[in-house]
């Protein structure tokens, strides 16, 4: 992915330089590295789509809560109704501590404490909010897949009603409302992302011991059922 950023930078130096550089003092290449922390939820670049979180193309100066078709948390909808716009300053505050800016957001990211880190990430995001986003050769720069799962497993269509029963094991910790405080939200994930994450725990790639234990005794069909239930939960 670093190569992508370098490529974009190489072909768009003039354009980037022209984009309010006074606001964007960060190192986009370093920002691309830091962005990996975001990439399991947010896609960015050509072909990026909404996943666990909305895609981040064109995020600068976009009104909050406006990615068409994405189901935002009630907290984000309130913030959008209140007129929140993603300026450099508001994005800076949001990625420093998401819940301090938007209470009840489902974004359970702890935040970037360091101002330079935030500047660098925002510099990277900025590449996709101006001319660089329109480069047709650009490949998707962030893919939510963090673990390989066999296509036949991903193809299983889960039964949401069975998933609802199984979800009782999840809701001792995860909140149905989507609220997150120390334990991330698992509602409205795209089914594929949910399945991939659970198999990553099941296979020991993701390291959280509680989740490894919980996923470890779920069959492929049961994981699919949970994914189907949580994807469309009201």
């Amino acid at each position, binding site marked *: 992915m670093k190569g992508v950023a370098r490529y974009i930078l190489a072909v768009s130096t003039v354009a980037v330089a022209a984009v309010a550089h006074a606001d964007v003092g960060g190192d986009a290449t370093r920002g691309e590295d830091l962005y990996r922390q975001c990439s399991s939820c947010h896609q960015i670049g050509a072909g990026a789509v909404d996943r666990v979180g909305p895609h981040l193309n064109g995020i600068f100066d976009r009104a909050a809560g406006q990615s068409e078709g994405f189901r935002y948390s009630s907290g984000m909808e309130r913030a959008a109704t209140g007129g929140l716009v993603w300026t450099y300053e508001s994005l800076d505050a949001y990625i420093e501590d998401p819940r301090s800016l938007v209470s009840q957001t489902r974004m359970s990211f702890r935040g970037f404490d360091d101002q330079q880190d935030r500047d660098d990430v925002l510099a990277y995001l900025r590449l996709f909010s101006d001319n660089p986003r329109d480069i047709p050769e650009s490949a998707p720069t962030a893919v939510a897949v963090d673990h390989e799962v066999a296509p036949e497993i991903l193809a*299983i269509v*889960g*039964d949401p*009603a*069975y998933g609802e*029963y*199984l979800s*009782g*094991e999840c*809701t*001792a*910790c*995860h*909140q*149905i*409302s989507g*609220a*997150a*405080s*120390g*334990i991330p939200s698992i509602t409205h994930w795209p089914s594929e992302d949910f399945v991939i994450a659970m198999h990553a725990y099941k296979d020991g790639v993701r390291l959280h*011991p*509680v989740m*490894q*234990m*919980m996923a*470890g*005794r779920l*069959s492929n*069909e*049961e994981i699919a*059922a949970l994914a189907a239930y949580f994807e469309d939960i009201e």
Partner: protein
Amino acid sequence: MKLNRRAFIGTAAAAAGTFAAPLLVRADGHAKPRVVIVGGGAGGATAARYIAKDSNGEIDVTLIEPTRTYYTCFFSNLYLGGFRTMDSLGHSYGTLAAEYGINVVHDWATGVDRDAKTVATAGGYTIPYDRLILSPGIDFVDGAVAGWDVTSQNAMPHAYKAGSQTELLRAQVEAMPQGGTYAMVAPPNPFRCPPGPYERVSMVAHMLKETNPTAKILIADPKEKFSKQGLFEAGWNDHYAGMIERVGPDFGGDNIEVDPNAMTLSIDGDVTNVDVCNVIPAMKAGKIADLAGITEGNWAPVNAADLSSKMDENIHVLGDACAQGDMPKSGFSANSQAKVCANAVRGALTGSTVFPARFANTCWSLIDTNNGVKVGASYEATDEKIAKVDGFISEVGESAEVRQATFEESVGWYDGITADMFG
């Protein structure tokens, strides 16, 4: 074969037929089946909510709980350490009544007539049931600690039922003289929340370190070992070096006598003057289980698949009060058992699908600021008991970042489980 809910119904109907048959006779000729639940904690509130939610009005649910505000025992140690307010531990039953249609009766259950299938309350009511779920938590064994009974709990608080006792204990610790002694009489197995007394020691030590650093903590413990022992002892050594002394059974920790008037603790005949004495006696099932005649010894034996009493198929027992096998007595366990029980009870009363029982428990403890540890396991129902399948425990020597993340996770769990209990 693809296994989903519908496939499960087909394949498991024969095996699970016992649970799938609807009850034909309703208590008191009532149009809907009636479930009465005694006790509104992690087991009872969860069971009430899940039965009401999942039955879509097909079952009348009555929850009998004396308190209008329920203070969770889990996280009450954090109040002692100054990490939570008492208000943050309090929860009302308003949502269960308003949004789930549960009939919440604030009263004491004083008896069960198993033949008539009714529950009597102190307020003089007789409440009929088709299925009764008892989740009364714990009571204390009379005479378990020589010199102590419930009349001396203001002088020597147990603080093992959250609320006024917890506030009293904290006030006593705050009032300790400089260099004074806080003593704890730890309970024998089995008891509510196996790491609870030792998390409490950590929280009291945290408080004393800030305000009374020359104070001492003395633990008289009848057990050879205790939950998360290695983690706690390493933490105490790192954070509260020289402050905490534990006397196990080898040195008389199982031969205790207290004098609440003189404020003394005798360990194997060796008398010590103390400033605070936190007596946590041996425990037994909440009294209503005994009154219902479904206990054997101190606890109520149950069948693992649906938490039904081994003495009465129409009564189920959840959480701390039941003898079910390998699960620890914890809020998480009670919540997990409640969902299995709710599914089974609903199936028995309405013919809805009963899925296989699955159980899990995770228990977080705080040692010092942002220093959390955890232990957990998953379980399955066997013919004999709820049996442990798999488990994990935090490691000694984890990084500060891991310990902080574990603590933050525990805060998230608190929010999650209380939402799961109270809606």
